[in-house]
């Protein structure tokens, strides 16, 4: 191989190091206007009235858009379009954008946004996923159950598996709400080109999907919409949902002028998804030799007010809940739940990042109770080629787990002869 396995300079290295790389915030067009979103201060409220008159009197303010100004469908989302672009009757989380100001300068846009008068009737908010999941809990979306998704995984017989165990550990683990903290806050520019096509420059993870979403909101044909991703300053899953794409599109189409939005770090935190906090109840059993016999898991993930990728993320959590181990008897239930918290979505690991806190803590606790080394209990149960996962999937090729264990243990200076039962290490 001449090129594979080498480390040539990155194709974008020079432009980034010299500051020549063009990010969406670097783009400017003649006659460009600036957008500013007005976001809900409430987790749950009815919108009683929106008065834009004072905002429109601010010098430089060209428009204040609300739900009624959306020409196409007022909904967006990667699976369900359950998130309004501009909330019309109700806000379901503090993320929700209620009005959108377009002005000739960023300062005028800010001043205009401060003058948009929205009267809310605050409603009780569901902030605890354990409350939201209860039968009879008020619904976050009137037309949708609070349980967005439930995946059961069943293999073998867990009762028999726990009966066969010499030691059982049972614990509850919780992970937190996390931000992607990518380097470059959201930025987007939209303009109508010489053909009348809409061009959007945006830091995104998927230009073709953005086109689908923008076309739906505008009610336009997709061939007249062009999405371009210039340099992107990190994403980690936080750029998979619509944040500014549909907003700058509305501004450019409404005013027929190029429209730009650049978020501050503070607003960036409010605008994009977060990592699902998960509550994970784990019960794991093993024989005194250290072989796993049974696993019972319940995982509840808080999706916040909108689904985003919730079904796929809780599915991934469930499928990875065993850890990389052969367990003959498994009962897993994972739930994604709506609340009125800020919405959660994709973030590096996509639901498989939370369960390791639980399954790897359980492995160490079992090892401690059994008086065997953490390496040894993992070695005894680790996936190898041909093994079958909890979903019945045969791992047919490239199962390098034990190789990673051996190399890491050697680097740590551990004595494999003592840690591997029988002293075998030539895998």
């Amino acid at each position, binding site marked *: *191989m*001449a090129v*594979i*396995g*080498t480390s040539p300079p*990155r194709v*974008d290295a020079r432009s980034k190091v010299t500051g020549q790389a063009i990010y969406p915030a670097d783009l400017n067009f003649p006659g460009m206007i600036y957008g500013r979103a007005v976001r809900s201060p*409430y987790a749950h409220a009815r919108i009683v009235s929106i008065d834009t008159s004072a905002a429109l009197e601010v010098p430089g303010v060209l428009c204040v858009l609300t739900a009624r100004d959306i020409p196409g469908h007022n909904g967006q989302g990667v699976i369900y379009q359950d998130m309004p672009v501009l909330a019309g009757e109700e806000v379901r989380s503090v993320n929700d954008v209620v009005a959108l100001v377009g002005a000739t300068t960023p300062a005028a846009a800010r001043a205009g946004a401060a003058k948009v008068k929205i009267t809310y009737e605050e409603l009780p908010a569901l*902030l605890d996923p354990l409350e939201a999941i209860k039968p009879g809990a008020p619904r976050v979306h009137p037309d949708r159950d609070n349980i967005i998704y439930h*995946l059961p995984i*069943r293999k073998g017989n867990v009762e028999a598996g726990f009966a066969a165990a010499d030691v059982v550990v049972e614990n*509850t*683990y919780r992970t*937190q*709400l*996390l*931000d992607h903290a990518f380097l470059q806050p959201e930025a987007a520019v939209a303009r109508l080109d010489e053909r009348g096509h809409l061009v959007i420059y945006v830091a*995104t*993870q*998927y*230009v073709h*999907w953005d086109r689908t979403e923008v076309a739906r909101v505008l009610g336009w044909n997709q061939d007249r919409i062009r999405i*371009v991703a210039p340099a992107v300053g990190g*994403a980690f899953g936080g750029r998979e949902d619509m944040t500014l794409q549909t907003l700058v599109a509305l501004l450019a189409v409404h005013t027929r002028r190029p429209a730009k939005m650049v978020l501050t770090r*503070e607003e960036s935190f409010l605008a994009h998804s*977060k990592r699902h906090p998960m509550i994970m109840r784990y019960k794991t059993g093993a024989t005194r030799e250290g072989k796993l016999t049974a696993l019972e898991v319940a995982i509840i993930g808080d999706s916040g007010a909108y689904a985003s990728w919730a079904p*796929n993320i809780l*599915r*991934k959590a469930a*499928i*990875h809940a065993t*850890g990389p181990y052969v367990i003959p008897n498994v009962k897993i239930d994972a739930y994604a739940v709506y609340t009125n*918290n*800020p919405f959660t979505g*994709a973030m*590096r*690991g996509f639901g*498989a*990042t939370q369960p*390791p806190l639980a*399954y*790897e803590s359980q492995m*160490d*606790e079992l090892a401690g109770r059994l008086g065997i080394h*953490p*390496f040894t209990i993992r070695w005894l149960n680790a996936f190898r080629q041909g093994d079958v996962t909890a979903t019945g*999937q*045969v*791992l047919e*090729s*490239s199962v*390098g787990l034990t*190789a*990673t*264990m051996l*190399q*890491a*243990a050697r*680097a*740590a200076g551990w004595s494999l002869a003592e840690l591997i039962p029988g002293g075998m290490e030539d895998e």
Partner: protein
Amino acid sequence: MSKKRGTGMACIFYGTGYGNGFPDVSTATVEIHDDGTATVHSGAVDCGQGSSTILAQIAAEELGIPYEWVTVITADTDTTPDAGTTAATRQTYASGNAVKIACRQARDVLFEHTRTLLGVNTIAGLAAREGIIYVRGYPRKQISYSEAAARARLAGCRLVGQGTFVTHTTAVDPETGQGAPYWPYAFATQIAEVEVDTETGEVRVLKLIAAHDVGRAVNRLGVEGQIEGGIAQGLGMALLEKVHLQQGRIVNNSFSTYLIPTVLDMPEIQPLIIESNEPTGPYGAKGVGEPATIPTVPAIINAIYNAVGVRIRELPVTPEKILAALREKEGGKK
């Protein structure tokens, strides 16, 4: 001594790709020019993780030209084909395969013309490496890529390829969860060494050994970069980061109150690349983007337990939680 050290181990697996039978598709095109250089078109967004570099390397390898001869055009719906999301650790695998297929197609057109110039009866008898096309088993008989491309194009050949790759997955049964939801799976082991200050509750991560099965490292420095970045993000999740809510409102929406690791928080990192050679991957590659971050949290959690005998089950592990757990443990002893 108030500072105690411990080590902790964590193993993970990670199913790459969209999974569960979802259409996981990437398309790419390539065109070889008169001078032997080539342009790849792919919708794949490079978010900074390095996919454009990976795609250029794969194109160079498959076409048999130097890396510097490849330009990769990405992420423009007017000009590039749909490559799917830059997510799910899938661009090296899915788009890498698409680019490889496209390049093989374009190269075969070139080889078909070139074989007549070299008196070879089948394109299976030709190979290319770093801008030279040569006869297998008789490499002295060769032609430069630029001459071969120019002559083929002058003869009316158009050296264009298009590749579409679909990652195989099967939906799981909604009642039992049974099925083959992802492919391929990546694996990793990390071992953390930490130092816990039992007076202040502060945890310092001193070292992380990170062994990752990536199938095949297309770009070794890129893999190491992903591992280092993944550990930084994992360390933040383990010890520092949390979005605080009050009545559903985010209260710490700035980097003065939402703390992410700085260079001063970073441990020594020893990346170890394991190449298990996935047969469905481009040159055996799987991916490393997400797996890089996943084992870090439990490795640190287990190292803390090993150091001071307390197990924190709720993230992040703040000094307050360590101190409270230590007090509880001491109380339990008395």
